[in-house]
């Protein structure tokens, strides 16, 4: 069991953002984390990444507690995030962004071969390696952000709303890439607003509402759950 989040509580000053949240992800599966704007999804994955700290509970990854490990060391364990809004280094080229993705000790060795593999996975990046990342379109930037995440040798890849603001065709392309990544045995925690497509590729799903898990179950169960259909699918 690679990731186990047990009863975490996260505050921004006095503001209680996450309230007793627990999530379990198994090896090589995709977990969907759904929820409306401001529910606390980003806060949750930032807590796993070590950018936010929980006051209670624990976060266990491969049997090891990570909640007190600083963010730059969490990366060394293989917990990798593709952040919301891509957050590429705009003045670095695509190639340099990918290289920074392999900055950690974990990923530095064999990074050239890894880059070849990532470009195979995301061929759209191949002829853009020398472009400044900030000068690309939203879709290209998202592909680059995923590529950068893969360069870090993820064991658990957390993606924060990767389809945000992308054209439907690009969204489809991106979900195909996510499925390819899953097939390599990497676990995925997918934060999404695109409920339909996320449930389609994931095994389990959680719904976060105002900082609490309000619904959870297998993707199949949630797909037919009237409450979820009502609030997110607009049916």
């Amino acid at each position: 069991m690679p990731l186990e989040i047990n009863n975490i509580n996260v505050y921004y000053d006095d503001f209680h953002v996450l309230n007793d949240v627990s999530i379990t992800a198994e090896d090589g599966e995709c977990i969907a984390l759904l929820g409306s704007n401001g529910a606390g999804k980003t806060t949750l994955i930032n807590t796993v990444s070590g950018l936010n700290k929980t006051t209670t509970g624990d976060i266990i990854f491969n049997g090891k507690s990570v909640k007190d490990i600083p963010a730059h060391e969490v990366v060394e364990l293989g917990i990798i995030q593709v952040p919301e809004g891509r957050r590429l280094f705009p003045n670095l080229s695509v190639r340099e962004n990918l290289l920074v993705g392999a900055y950690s000790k974990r990923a530095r060795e064999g990074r050239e071969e890894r880059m070849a593999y990532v470009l195979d996975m995301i061929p759209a990046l191949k002829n853009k390696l020398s472009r400044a990342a900030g000068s690309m379109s939203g879709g290209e930037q998202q592909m680059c952000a995923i590529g950068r995440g893969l360069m870090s040798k993820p064991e658990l890849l957390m993606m924060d709303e990767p389809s945000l603001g992308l054209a439907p065709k690009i969204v489809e392309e991106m979900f195909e890439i996510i499925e390819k990544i899953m097939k390599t045995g990497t676990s995925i925690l997918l934060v999404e607003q695109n409920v339909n497509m996320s449930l389609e590729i994931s095994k389990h799903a959680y719904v976060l509402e105002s900082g609490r898990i309000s619904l959870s179950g297998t993707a199949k169960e949630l797909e037919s759950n009237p409450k979820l259909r009502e609030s997110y699918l607009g049916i």
Partner: protein
Amino acid sequence: MLSQLAQPLLSGTLMGGVYGLIALGLSLVFGVMRVSNFAHGDLLMIAMYISVALWEGFGISPYVSIFGVAIFMFFVGVFIQKAAITPILKSEKERSPLRLILFTVGLSIFLQNLVLMIKGGAPVTATVPLSTQTLPVGDLIVSIPRLLAFVLSIVITVILWFFISKTDTGRAMRAVSQDRETSLLMGINEYKTYAIAFGIGTVLLGLAASMVSTFLYAFPTMGSSYTLRSYVIVALGGIGSIPGAMIGGLVVGIIESISAQFMPASYSEVVIFIIFILVLVIKPSGMFGKERK
């Protein structure tokens, strides 16, 4: 008229290269961690005093001690970063520049008085055999130590440019300067990166100080004019731009020495300051800098 300007143009260019090297450290530190170091010129002053002391006390020429001084200055920089700047940065959730400005201004005053206390206020310099050597080029006279300082400054700048653009550490520094939170998600230790940046900044000061100590005088209050010049150069060249700092340095050096032909030398600082304000008003990102979001 033209031949009258040729000599100051030459001297200004030679000195400008060194100004560029001195400004690079300030630019790097500000670019990577957004810290304004008002003790920058004072750290140059300290390094010059060390260089002179090694010459006067032990007969070690600044051209020999330069690497030792540079390494020593690296540890001085890393120490200042780790002992003071990093704790101040860590103690504030929302980083406000105020406390760091107070700290570096305080450090500047401390260093000046430290030197005043130990060595007094009289200017010092390392008069080595090379100090007074000149090379005639046509009608012009080239000072050899100044030429040497200029050439070395350019070489060091090129090496630094290579380091920043091609190495993993250099790339990490650029990443941190663009988005520090995301850098953490890449496994970059931001505080270690800051210490390296500050250390490189002080290494550059150590190198520059060793070279100029053979033809310039060091005195306790000299730092402020170098800090000011460095700010003007960084404003001209754009924050974090290595070629920008070098070009900015040349511009300042040339303007300074040409204006000295027409007015008392002490006014040249006023001229520099006017340029500074003009740049800030007309193009705040620097004449050669990229626009920052």
